[in-house]
């Protein structure tokens, strides 16, 4: 467990460095392309004013048990809100058009696609993402099962697969392997880890209990 933590820490710090580097370089590119009025606004710490040009609306939302009072443009999707504003980058932007399932999260207990959900429409709702599953260092049983059965290769679809898998069991749709394949069909895995994903879900289902 200690070793895993150490690995996790190293990975996290690397991850942050890369993400911050990308963010900073994108910001510089954006600055180079921005109209002079915006650059002046940013230079004078008036970037908030520039943002206000697009009308924002207030949004109350609970994500992984934490309540947020935010301000968003109506066009911001739930996925972009999670990733860009709340820095919860576990939910992945695969296709961004509702075809791959990598962005699957739970809203008020139901699995939905966050890329096709407008954040403003989730007012007063409770969202659970992959980051909200583990209890400290104790992984969720479905996360454990995915590791045990090797339910992934590259891992990009995995957060969506796991969120969908938990919902699939809770909905009572994981009774047979065929049912699991049918009710997991909204989550695409291009590495082809499907047989192992089915095994992981079957195991969690057969163990029973509340997940």
């Amino acid at each position, binding site marked *: 467990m200690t070793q895993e933590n150490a690995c996790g820490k190293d990975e996290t710090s690397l991850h942050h460095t890369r993400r911050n580097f990308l963010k900073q370089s994108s910001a510089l590119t954006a600055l180079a392309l921005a109209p002079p009025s915006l650059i002046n606004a940013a230079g004078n710490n008036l970037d908030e004013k520039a943002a206000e040009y697009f009308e924002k609306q207030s949004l109350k939302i609970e994500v992984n048990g934490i309540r947020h009072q935010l301000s968003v443009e*109506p066009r911001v999707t739930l996925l972009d809100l999670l990733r860009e504003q709340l820095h919860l980058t576990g939910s992945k932007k695969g296709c961004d058009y509702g075809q791959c*399932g990598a962005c699957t999260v739970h809203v008020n207990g*139901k*699995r*939905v696609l966050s890329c*096709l959900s407008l954040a403003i*429409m989730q007012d007063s709702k409770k969202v659970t993402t992959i980051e909200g599953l583990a209890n400290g260092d104790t992984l969720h049983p479905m996360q454990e099962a995915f590791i045990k059965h090797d339910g992934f290769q590259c891992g990009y679809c995995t957060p969506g697969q796991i969120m969908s898998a938990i919902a699939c069991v809770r909905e009572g*749709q994981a009774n047979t392997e065929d049912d699991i*394949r049918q009710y997991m069909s*909204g989550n695409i895995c291009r590495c082809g880890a499907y047989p192992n994903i089915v095994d992981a879900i079957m195991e969690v289902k057969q163990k029973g209990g509340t997940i």
Partner: protein
Amino acid sequence: MINFDYIRPSTQKAAIAALNKDATSQFIAGGTNLVDLMKRGVAVPQKLIDINNLPLKNIEQGKGFIHIGALALNSDVAEHELITKKLPLLSQALKAGASPQLRNMATVGGNMMQRTRCPYFYDTTMPCNKRQPGTGCGALKGYNRMHAIFGASEKCIAVHPSDMCVALTALDATVVISSNKGDRRIHFGDFHRLPGTTPEKDNNLQRGEMITAIEVPDNDAFSKNALYVKIRDRASYAFALVSVAAALDIKGNTIQNVRLAMGGVAHKPWRLTSAENFLKGKIASVENFKQTAAIAMKDAKGNGYNNFKLKLAPNTIVQTLKTVSGLS
């Protein structure tokens, strides 16, 4: 996505008033199709009116019909006890559509209002009379594998993508529509349109109107032998190449009454009325089913890449009828 204004009215009256006030506004419910179209620049409403706070989610028994609120989720309708018991055809069709995540978002009214998935409609660099009237139909002489074999025009050969609507057409449902002038009801089969010279109009809903409910006749005779068969490129989560909704009222070996409709073949859910009339009173046999399919295919016309549907469609009709009547 371009930015837009957003409001969330709490009454039906306020929602309809907001729609009438602003010609560039549009209702949003589940958003599974609209948000997709907005991201691609195909739909560009300047104001979205979120109707999710309206009390239109109920599914309940009426006198001789089942009432389904326009905001009932596809997943809730599919799993509801009244629907699985009395309208299994509708439940099967809903489960054949989209993915569990999308069915948890999509509403009944939104399912009816979804646009075609024709790639020429989705690609704003391509000609499309439905998206931009007068620009031509890219699919007519283009890659038209998914396209219509019934009721198409020179202007448009797109198909309606819904599975749910195919079942509702077969089940003779009624659409309840509200506006500031009151309520009106139209037969489900008259809701969607054929493309004709105005393919930009998918249906007969007028500006200022809102779908508030669907009423489906509660006909026990059709609940025992009902089957929705969907043929697609992969086992699940794909649009129909061809689908068949069939409900039979069989006594002994005789078909007393029958309902047949197809999906993936026309600009609207395609009811097979002459085929139904032929089969009524006949014995359930493969020969009769083949004749039924031949009658159903009478006016079918391919456009090249979709010619395979001219064989796939009748074969699917025969197979569906065989299965639903217990012959195979």
